[in-house]
Every structure is written in structure tokens, then in C-alpha cells.
């Protein structure tokens, strides 16, 4: 049985097709979201890659920010539940999931069976989210993927505000004007995200293993800063950004089997 999970996030659309709730047949990440053709492109891509048609899909679950807008789903499930399912699938010992997306951050506490038992979301603020990194990368004229490389070269990490993106932006500009090295600034920016989200994580309580999911998890600079901040090893999977879509596909399998 093939099931499709679609995660319509604030900045990207992700899709995963699973076979029998176990094997990932195909996956796709498209940088386009609600109100664009991003979702259909992600779906077309996974169908094409897997050689399947829509008729072959036994169940579809939509999750993420735009889940209510996708009419082709059998179920709409919150991204928190889906991330919990997806992470448990790839990391069965995960006790805490830190999901930093484009627009928000969430921390989930899982029980031994991978069921979410508690969670917190960030308040309505860009600090500690992917958007924060986008803004900072833009000021530094760097591509978002370069942040990780630059952060690794840091010698004297600069302290950047973790409370407000706008304040942090002016701090970064001031540091640039003062001639601060870019790697030191980038490491400070990653540290800022980690500090913000770590305080969120402490509200739920840290239970090892700690797994990072979402687009920001791809950034080793943030992962390393998070590990240092929380004093624990951070688990990571190359498909971290697809955990929501994977969880949605698992949910669909569970409902249709």
C-alpha cells in the first residue's frame, strides 16, 4: 500500500510517499508554499520519481501551515503530531523533538512509544526561526546554505540578541560597521537561534535523545550551538526537513491499513 504525506509549511512544500508504512519510495522539497503551485509540484515530483499515479495512493494526509487549504487529503493533521510520528520512525529513541521551521519553532516531548505527550510553540515572533536566519543571511549577503560553513570558521563568537529579529538585525549591522569577522557574526546568529529555542525546550523538559527536525536542522551551526546550549547530543537525520511529510504519510498508512 502506498500512502502520501504532504507538509505545506510556511516557506516550503514537502511530500513523501511510503510503501506499507515503512519504505520511503520518494520524497520532494519545493521552495514554494500556500497560494502557489508548490504543493502540486511537490506531489507531481514524488509521483514521477516513484512511477506511481494518484490512483495508486491509498491515503493522503496533509499537514503544516497550509494543511486546511489542500482539498485532496483524506485527513488534515497538525504538524506537531506528524513530526512526532516521523521522528519516531527514523529515531525510535527520541524523547524530545526540536522542530525549527521557516516561521515557527516547536518542541515536542515524546513517550517511549513515540506518542507526543506535551509540546510548546514559540510566541508570535520571528526570533528563533528560519525566518531569523533568512533575514541575517540577507544582511550578510550570504546564501542560507553558507551559514553552516561560515559558522564553523568562527574564532570569537559574537553575542547577538535572541529576543527580537529587528533588534538583532541592527546589532548585526553595527557589528559589520565595527569590522567584526563574518564567521564570528554567523556563529553568533546560530547561537541566537539556539538560545531562543533552547529556552522553549526547557519549558517542556529535555528528555534524551534530542532530535532536531525542520529546515533549520540542516544547519550544523545551529545544531552545534543547540547541543552546547542544552548540554546534550543532538540527533539529526539527512531527511530532517521531511519529518512532517513522513509523519503524515505514516498517519495515512495507520488510518488506511
Amino acid at each position, binding site marked *: 500500500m502506498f500512502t502520501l504525506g504532504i507538509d505545506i509549511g510556511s516557506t516550503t512544500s514537502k511530500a513523501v510517499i511510503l510503501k506499507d508504512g515503512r519504505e520511503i519510495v520518494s520524497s520532494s522539497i519545493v521552495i514554494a508554499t500556500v497560494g502557489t503551485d508548490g504543493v502540486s509540484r511537490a506531489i507531481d515530483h514524488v509521483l514521477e520519481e516513484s512511477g506511481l499515479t494518484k490512483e495508486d495512493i491509498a491515503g493522503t494526509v496533509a499537514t503544516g501551515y497550509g494543511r486546511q487549504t489542500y482539498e485532496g487529503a483524506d485527513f488534515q493533521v497538525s*504538524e*506537531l*503530531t506528524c513530526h512526532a510520528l516521523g521522528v519516531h520512525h527514523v529515531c525510535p529513541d527520541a524523547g524530545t523533538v526540536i522542530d525549527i521551521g521557516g516561521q515557527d519553532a516547536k518542541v515536542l516531548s515524546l513517550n517511549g512509544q513515540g*506518542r*507526543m505527550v506535551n509540546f510548546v510553540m514559540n510566541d508570535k515572533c520571528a526570533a528563533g526561526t528560519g525566518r531569523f536566519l533568512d533575514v541575517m543571511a540577507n544582511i550578510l549577503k550570504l546564501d542560507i546554505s553558507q551559514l553552516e560553513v561560515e559558522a564553523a570558521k568562527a574564532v570569537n563568537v559574537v553575542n547577538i540578541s535572541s529576543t527580537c529579529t529587528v533588534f538583532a538585525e541592527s546589532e548585526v549591522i553595527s557589528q559589520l560597521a565595527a569590522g567584526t569577522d563574518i564567521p564570528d557574526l554567523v556563529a553568533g546568529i546560530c547561537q541566537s537561534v539556539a538560545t531562543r529555542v533552547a529556552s522553549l525546550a526547557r519549558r517542556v523538559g529535555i528528555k534524551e535523545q534530542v532530535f532536531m527536525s525542520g529546515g533549520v536542522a540542516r544547519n550544523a551551526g545551529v545544531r552545534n550551538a543547540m547541543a552546547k546550549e542544552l548540554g546534550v547530543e543532538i540527533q539529526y537525520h539527512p531527511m530532517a526537513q521531511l519529518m512532517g511529510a513522513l509523519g503524515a504519510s505514516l498517519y495515512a498508512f495507520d488510518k488506511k491499513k
Partner: protein
Amino acid sequence: MKGKELLAQLHEAASSPKKQLEKYLAQGKKVVAVAPVYTPNEIIHSMGLVPMGVWGADVEINEAKKYFPAFICSIMQTALELGIKGEYDGVSAIVIPSLCDSLKCLGQNWKYAVKNIPFIPMTYPQNRKPDYGKKFTKAGYARVISDLTIATGAQFSEFALAESIKVYNEHNAVMREFAEIAADADITAAARNDVFKSAWFMLPEEHTAIVKKLNEALKAGPKAKGKLRVLVTGILADSPSLLKIFDENGVKVVFDDVAHESRQYRTDVPDMENPVDAMAQKFADMGNCTLLYDPDKNRVDYIVEQAKAHKADGVIVLMTKFCDPEEFDYVPIKRACAAAGLKHLNIEVDRQMVNYQQAATMVQAFKEMF
């Protein structure tokens, strides 16, 4: 009258306070605004005046920003905004209690910003239970009575107060009964809120008459099935968008510890020889509220006890943004819920919320945990 019609009547009153104000003014009555959280409404009522609640509204704040810092409770800010913009014109005075720092600021700012509606302070003691505390409360009532007389020309009598106390105690009982019946009745979160919210804009005797009939209708009506049963706690829970999210997700409010709702009706005025003494005793007897000093934080146990008594599956905390007293209480509430095996959710709310997407995700995820 059927339950639906009664609820429609209460919805109308809850959603159009201005109409209610105009109705009472047209009847030749004088209206006195009462700010959150507790004011001596029995006294106001006994003087032949209509107490009407002022809890702000979901409006954009412009004018009030001249008087308040940015990081302060939006209930206060929007109440002042509406006052400045003339929404309360026709009201004879406003009674603002001193129960939190933001309310103290509201009183002071009101005096300068809304000059056509006199500000009457109701200053409560921190220690309300000892005799000296009750004496202090009585002094506060005396000031309110005196200022009301100046503002409206209305006279006070102990006899009239004793009569009004009976009216309010009956209203309390009917509202408590409603809260219990609504725990199992098939009533939406939005309709449940209408019953509480409308009470702020109606004379208690009128509201009692409707809610009595509603209670009978709900008792005879169908029961709610297959819902996630929650206890809601916080200062205010009247956002239509948020209540819609509850209803869309099958979340049923089985009891509340909300300042705008049930906290108002828990304590009756006791039967005492002097009705002003009895009023002070009522205030002394009140408890389980963020804004009433309690070093033992009994509110925490109260929430857990009520959640269990009403067979709640979980607790939803509606945290009014920048409400320090509620934020201080949150940590022990969270711990007590965890210890009692009650799942809980904390949603930050304010009068400035435009986008409810995050709240919708949180409520849906909370439901999915069960």
C-alpha cells in the same frame, strides 16, 4: 421559549453592548461602567444604577498608546481606547478597582484621557481577610458610594443594598447552576461564553430570568458526546475566533476558572446584619483567583480539583499577554496538572490577535494527543 432562542437573545446582548447601553439610557436609567475584575456591583445596583462591564474589545489600539507602555495588558489598553473614542459616552461614571498594577494605571490614565466619564477608584486591601482588611474594604466602598452620589445624584441606603444582595446572590446561584449544566449539555464554547458575557451588559434580574429558563431547556436537551472535555482557565476567554477553533476541533468547555466568567459567581454575600459588612465579608471570602492575594496559591489545587470533578480530559490555560499575575501562577498550575496526570495547553491571547493559525494548530495538536 426554546434553548436556541434564549441563547440567541443572550448572544445579541453579548455582542451589542452599545445597544444595551442605549436601551437602559432610553429607559431613563443611569449606567455605571465597571472595570475588571471585581467591583461592588451590588452597591451600584442598590443605588438604582445599571452596572455594565468594561473589558475592552478586539480593536486596534491607537489613542491609548499615548497613555500606556507597549508591554501592558491589552484589556486595559482597549478599554481606555474605547473610552477615548467615545464608545462609552452616556455612562455616568466608571469604577476601576486596584486589583493589579495595570488596573491602577488604567484608573490614573482614565482620569486624564476620558474626562467626560468620572473615574471612581475602588481600592481593595492586599490582606482582605483580617478585620483590618475588611475595614479597609469598607472604606473603599464608602468612597465608591460617595463618588457615585456626586456623579449621578443617586442615594445609598442599607435597605436597598440588602435587596440588591438578594438579587445578586440569586444570579450567582443561577450562573453556577448553568456552569454545571453546560458541562454535559450540547452547547458550543461560543454559546457558553455568550451566557457569561451577556451578564456584563444586562441587569442581573433580567439575566437571571433568561438563564433560569435556559437551564431548564439545557437540562431537557441532548447531551454532548464524543468531545474532548477541558477546563479553561485565564482572565478572558471571549474571542469568537478562538472559541470557533474550540468548537471546530470538538473541544468542549466543561468548566472554567476564567475571571470574566465563573470566578464572578463563586462567592455569595453572606447573610449579616449590616449589608456593607456583608459585602466586605464576601470580598474576604473570595479566593482561588490570580488577583486576590493568596500566599498558598490555593487556585492551583482548585483547578485540578475542578478538572477532576468535571471529568475534564485536560486543562487549557488562556494566558493573557503581559498579565504578570497569571504568568506567575502558570508554573505551579503546569506542575500540578502534570502531577495529576492532566494534559494541559497554554495559549497566549490578547485583544490584538489577528491571526489565529498558531492557536488553531495548538488546539488541534492538543486534541490529537488524546
